[in-house]
Structure formats: structure tokens, C-alpha cells
């Protein structure tokens, strides 16, 4: 799409673009370039000397069982967060689309967790699930569950999944609700006249028409689980116990900031960048299809 009417100036457009380009270059391209550069270097502990080592940092990573384990952890975590988040919010949105009375009240309650910072969400759930004093721990103990996420890896994973899903439901809910409200009522009414019940209408009309929204949310939720959940993890498990919740982003931070392994951390950053680029490409190909749709 192009504008038919444009202005002419030899210098003005560059001046208008300058602030954004300056920030983009200083804070995006320069650091990203450095990440790629460092990923091919081996630095000594004080950062005084570095030598070019080619792909050594990368091969070392893929030989490191902790790194491969972190891939698996990330896969389990992001699939759980995206799957649970999408299913629960689809259910809530379908229900909210049906109600007339109290719709605004339900909507208001359901969207506010979007405003909660990931780290705060983590603290809230860690408090309720605290092994000795948590209110939910108390209920679980009453049910005979031995709950202690500080020493049990699978429970720590469950905790960060719950906190992350809780925070993301609002977002998914709003998109599903917008998608549901865009479905022409005449389609639903026609199916009802033909004798299709609510369940049948949902599976054969509503769900197929919502599938673009669901696919879009799948990509967004995976990106969310990959990157934005850093705050949840740092505020609760910090990757533990025994790396049971150390997702890729947390490992970049842990190795780079806490262990000061610049080369290894940068190589991990480069791998993450490749993953983000792949996800962005998938997302944009999908959006092109949606425009024709």
C-alpha cells in the first residue's frame, strides 16, 4: 500500500526517522552484533583476553547435558502454558459471549491480571503455595498431597505454569471474545433453525471460524512462555530445584550474569535469536493469510 499524495523534501524524512534509527542502532543492532561476535570468542575470567574459537561455543553447548535438558524444560513449560492458557480462556470466552446479564462484571474480573507484572504474579502464587505457610499448601496437605516445590522439581514446574497461565488468561480471553463477537449471528441462527444444538454449533461453526485466532494466540503464547515468563521464574524458583525450571532465557541470564560465561551465554543468545526469528516468520506468514481470509 502506498500513498498517492506525498510531500517532497531532501532532508526532512531523514530528520524524522533519526531518533528511532539512533535508538534502534545503539540498543538493538550494536548489542545483537556483539552477541554474535562474542559467541565466536573465548574470554578469560577477567575479560582481558579473548580469542576467536569459531563454533566451539556452540558445539560445547550442544554437548552440555544441562543445555539440552534446558531445551526439554522449555518445551514442556511452553507447551503447558500455551495449551492450558488457550483451552481455559476459550472456555471462559465462549461462556462470556453467551451471557447478557453481568457480562461487564465478568469481563472486568477476568481482564485485570493482564496488569500484574510477571514477577508479582510469581510472588503471589509462591506465597499461596509456600511449603510451610501457604494457604493452598494447607488445603493440599489436608488432601494428603506432600507439597514442597522448593525441593520437588515437578511441583516447581507446576507452580510456574500456574502463575504464568493465570497472568496470560486475560490476554487470550480478550482475543477469543473479539473473535467470537466477529462471527456473524446469522450463521449461528441458521444452524439453530436447521436443528443444530449448542454443542454441535460450537464444534462445526464457532471453532473453525475461531481457528485463525487460536493459531495466532498459540504463537503469541509460546513467545510469552519463552521470554516474558522470566519474571515469574526469577521471583519464584530461580531455575531450581536442580535446574528443573531452568528455561532457555533463564539459562542465558544465569550463565551470563551470575556465572560470567560471556562466550557461552552469547552463543545461547544467538540460538534464541534464531528461534525468535523463526516464530516471527511463522506469525507473519499467518497474518498474510488472515488478510486474504
Amino acid at each position, binding site marked *: 500500500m502506498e500513498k498517492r499524495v506525498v510531500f517532497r523534501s531532501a532532508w526532512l524524512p531523514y530528520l524524522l526517522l533519526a531518533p528511532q534509527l539512533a535508538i534502534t542502532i545503539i540498543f538493538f543492532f550494536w548489542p545483537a552484533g556483539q552477541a554474535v561476535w562474542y559467541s565466536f570468542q573465548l574470554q578469560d575470567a577477567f575479560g582481558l583476553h579473548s580469542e576467536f574459537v569459531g563454533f566451539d561455543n556452540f558445539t560445547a553447548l550442544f554437548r552440555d547435558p544441562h543445555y539440552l535438558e534446558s531445551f526439554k524444560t522449555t518445551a514442556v513449560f511452553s507447551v503447558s502454558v500455551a495449551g492450558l492458557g488457550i483451552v481455559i480462556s476459550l472456555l471462559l470466552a465462549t461462556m462470556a459471549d453467551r451471557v447478557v446479564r453481568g457480562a461487564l462484571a465478568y469481563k472486568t474480573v477476568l*481482564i*485485570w491480571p493482564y496488569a500484574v507484572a510477571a514477577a508479582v*504474579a510469581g510472588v503471589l502464587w*509462591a506465597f499461596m503455595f509456600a511449603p510451610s505457610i501457604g*494457604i493452598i499448601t494447607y488445603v493440599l496437605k489436608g488432601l494428603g498431597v506432600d507439597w514442597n516445590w*522448593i525441593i520437588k522439581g515437578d511441583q516447581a514446574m507446576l507452580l510456574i505454569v500456574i502463575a504464568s497461565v493465570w497472568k496470560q488468561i486475560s490476554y487470550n480471553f480478550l482475543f477469543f471474545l473479539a473473535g467470537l463477537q466477529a462471527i456473524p449471528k446469522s450463521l449461528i441462527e441458521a444452524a439453530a433453525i436447521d436443528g443444530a444444538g449448542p454443542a454441535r454449533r460450537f464444534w462445526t461453526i464457532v471453532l473453525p471460524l475461531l481457528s485463525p485466532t487460536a493459531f495466532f494466540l498459540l504463537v503469541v503464547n509460546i513467545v510469552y512462555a519463552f521470554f516474558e515468563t522470566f519474571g515469574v521464574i526469577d521471583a519464584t524458583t530461580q531455575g531450581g530445584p536442580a535446574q528443573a525450571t531452568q528455561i532457555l532465557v533463564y539459562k*542465558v541470564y544465569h550463565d551470563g550474569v551470575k556465572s560470567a560465561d560471556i562466550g557461552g551465554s552469547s552463543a545461547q543468545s544467538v540460538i534464541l535469536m534464531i528461534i525468535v526469528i523463526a516464530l516471527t516468520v511463522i506469525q507473519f506468514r499467518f497474518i498474510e493469510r488472515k488478510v486474504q481470509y
Partner: protein
Amino acid sequence: MVEKRPLLDFITHAVLIVGALVIAFPLYVTFVASTLSLEEIMTVPMPLLPGGHFIENYSQVLFGGSTTGSKAAVLDMLINSTVMALAVPLGKTTISILSSFAIVYFRFPLRNFFFWMIFVTLMLPVEVRIIPTFKVMADLGLLNTYAGLTLPLIASATATFLFRQFFMTIPDELAEAARIDGAGPMRFFWDVVVPLSKTTMAALFVIQFIYGWNQYLWPLLITSDESMYTVVIGIKRMIVGGDSANEWNLIMATAMLAMLPPAAVVLLMQKWFVKGLVETEK
């Protein structure tokens, strides 16, 4: 509603009520805990009705921080968070409305190249360039400064896209009329484009306010000085050890203070919030 189905209506409301209760429960527990004394929280199970320490806990965190963890006053942190939550949307709106105006309303060499340069920043979230960005900030002397907290967050492809998309819908006749009347590009920008963009700006503001307020990794990296902590970082610094060593009443009071401003923005500006959320993702 297509037909009357009382049973289904009942199930609908039941699901929504259960959903709403589960979603709201953490907020309620947080509020209750922020009004209790530490001893009351440590009794298992903790009381589920508000206690009488509301003023005590909140004034303690606002002016004195926690006693076992970070002693920085939360009031200062709230000011830092506010600065960040306002600077990010203002900076973002300013630089992206200018750059998208240039891209939409001018033809100039390298135009597409610059557009793609902005576009690819979508693929470089802060999280993947932690270490090198930190080094860049240290080299520029921006650690523990407001500029360091906000500048790297204000470049965004999404805002530029949003304005570009909106500018494409402004009728060409307006620009034509402005040109015939002898208005230059900047006159057209101020008198036509900016007033028309107000709703887009409001929507963007709500989303970016929340984004700025809730930043975590970035302030964690570049603030080592307590006086520069944002409130989200402050909560983390109050957690010092095992679950019984923490002053949960104070942590929960701080959590309430950290949640209130963005929640108020979402609830009071719900219309702009929904518009901003749905449109920035297009």
C-alpha cells in the same frame, strides 16, 4: 442468544463464576495478607478475613521498606516506576509517530531499507541480548540512570506499525487539500495527522504504560543502586530466604501497591486498553 436453554444458562454462569473466583482469589489473599501482622500470617492456615494492620503495614513499606530484606522505601520505588511507566509510552509515541510519518508521507532513497531496519527489531527482545546490551549501557555510562532505564525500551516496531497502519487510512484528499492551501509537511503533521491520531495514541499509551510499569529483567540488570529500584524489583529484593523468613505482610502490601496503578489504568481505560491490545498485535 439463539434459543432459551435454562440449564445451559445455569452452566454458563457457573463456569464464569468459578473462573472469576479463581482469577480473583490471589488478589484477595494478597489484600488480606497485607492487612495482617506477620504472626497472623505464620499461623497455619492464615486467616482469610482482613486484619487490623492495614495502616501499619502500608506506612512501614511506603516510608521504610522491609526490615529484614531491602530497606529502600517503596514510595521512592513508586516514583521510579511512575517515571518509567510515563517515559516509555511518551518516548515511544513520539519517535514512532515521527518515523511512520516519514515512511508514509515521503518518498526518499533507502526508505524501504529503514522500514525493514525498524521491522527486524521485533525479532530482538531484550531477553536475547542481555549481556551485550548491558555492556553497551555500561560503556555509555547509563547504569543507574532514568535514561538507561527507559531509552532501550522506547524503540519499538509495533508502535511504528500501528501508526503506519492508521496513516494509511487517512484520506489522501486531506493531504491534497493541505498542499493546495500551501501547508508544508510539518504544518500538515501538527494540524491534521496528530489530532486524527488521538485515539491511536490513547490506546498505545495504556498498553505501554503497563509495559513500562511491569518491566522486570531490564531494571534488574541496570539498577544496582537502591534509589533507582522500581517497585517490581523492590518486591523481589524483599524476599530474602525461605518462606518463613520473609516478612510476607510487608511483601504483600508492596505487591498491592505494585498492582494498583496498572490495574487502575486497565479498569478505568478499559475501552482504550482493549483497542490497544487488539490493534498492536495485528
